[in-house]
């Protein structure tokens, strides 16, 4: 019976690797208040995904190129205008989302891929995508390990980081890039609508049971992986949509720990 599910092995490994990566990245995302950034990048990437679909190119690869462009554009506009980051992210979000929808409308007939862009479909993950996810996840992990202390310092207090002699703009840009690329890596699995949940739910839940930062670094990926495994079991056990099952389970864990924490402190 189990051999019937071999086709799911690669997607499962890919999701598990991404979940681990997101659970660590998510800590920085919450610290730097960037959850709307990843949401914006995901939605704007509809344009690059539509373009890839239109030109018959690999969706994830062109999505990554698009993410690098969008995050660079947000970073540049943030520094050249007096507008707040969330307003700029909103601008990029709606501009490229609408362009993407227009582009898709040029394809005649029913477009199931359009729905996949929004809510994800793990079965569309190709072997090439699988290796692309592993490769970029590894690169992002290495960047995180290399600059871990600096990212924390920059996100905790920009002024202090400047005093320590760090080029904060450079490190913020590097983080924007890796976050944007990481966001795109998971789009085929959860779709653009739910991707941010994978980033923020594990660290948010882990913060309720962590007494210090080291524990947060352990509990967040553990919960992230638990969410994925449970989401898979729920999805295939009860024939439910996978991405929605993962996110619904993650949110349940969050609320469970939230109420547990609430009653414990009373």
């Amino acid at each position, binding site marked *: 019976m189990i051999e019937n599910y071999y086709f799911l092995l690669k997607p499962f490994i890919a999701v598990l690797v991404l979940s681990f990566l997101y659970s660590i990245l998510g800590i920085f995302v919450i610290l730097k208040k960037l959850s709307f950034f990843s949401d914006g990048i995901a939605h704007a990437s509809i344009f690059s995904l539509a373009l890839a679909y239109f030109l018959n190119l690999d969706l994830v690869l062109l999505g990554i190129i698009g993410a690098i462009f969008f995050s660079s554009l947000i970073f540049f506009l943030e520094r050249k205008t007096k507008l707040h980051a969330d307003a700029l992210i909103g601008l990029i979000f709606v501009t490229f989302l609408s362009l993407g929808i227009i582009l898709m409308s040029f394809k005649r007939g029913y477009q199931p891929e359009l729905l996949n862009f929004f809510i994800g479909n793990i079965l569309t993950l190709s072997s090439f995508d699988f290796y692309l996810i592993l490769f970029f996840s590894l690169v992002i992990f290495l960047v995180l390990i290399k600059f871990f202390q600096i990212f924390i310092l920059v996100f905790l207090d920009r*002024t202090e980081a400047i*005093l320590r002699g760090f080029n904060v703009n450079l490190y913020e840009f590097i983080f924007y890039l890796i976050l944007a690329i990481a966001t795109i890596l998971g789009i085929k699995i959860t779709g653009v609508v739910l991707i941010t949940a994978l980033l923020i739910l594990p660290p948010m839940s882990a913060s309720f049971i962590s007494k210090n*930062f*080291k524990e947060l670094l352990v509990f967040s990926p553990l919960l992230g992986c638990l969410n994925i495994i449970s989401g898979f079991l729920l999805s295939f056990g009860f024939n439910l949509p996978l991405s929605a099952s993962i996110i619904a389970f993650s949110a349940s864990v969050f609320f469970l720990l939230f109420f547990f924490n609430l009653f414990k402190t009373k």
Partner: protein
Amino acid sequence: MKPFALEVKNLSVRLGNNLVLDNLNFEIEEGSITAIIGPNGSGKSTLLKAIIGLIPFQGEILIYGKPNFEQRKILGYVPQSYEIDKFLPMTVKEFLEFNLTKETFPKKEHLNHHLKEMDIVQFENKQLKDLSGGQLQRVLFCRALVNDPKILLLDEPTSGIDLVGQREFYEIIHFLNTHHRLTILMVTHEITIVHHFANHVLCLNKKLICNGPVNLLFKEEILKELYGREIFVYPFNKPPIQK
């Protein structure tokens, strides 16, 4: 004469169309405690930001004879306020360890020394979000010290702290100045307390109104020029109102 820790020459700062600092010229001697006073919006915090190099400016800021951008690492800074993310389960010790740079990172005993000195050991495993205002201020002080600065910049460091906390805070400043030979530059509104601890004062209202020994503060004409109205600084220049 002692060398200058800080020299400011023809410093002007413009934020948008507003001239926030107008052609400041002054020097700060090594080992001094300087209070920067002035009304709200007079450019006190902007001056500190310019010294750190956070904002563009015209003129010259020299720290031990070199441009400020080259000397940032010998500056310590305690901000007016520090927003702690309630989400973050980070302990005091972890927070301070993250602030150790490569030069000081191998020396964990160095951090332990400052934890003891600032009386933080008792709450080093407490989470940042659970600290009182006074405890957080000590932690920020400790953070400013862990990389061995030569000049400490304090931006209204006692705002939001009770009187006992303020007293302790100024005693720490005095201790750091005498035992660590730190040059201290602090923005403050507490003229009556400053007089006990500072030995130099800069009165700022976009322009430099006064620059010299701290007793300048108790000249009515200077305070009037600085704040635009008569200010009585009890008990130094006026008796208390008798009922």
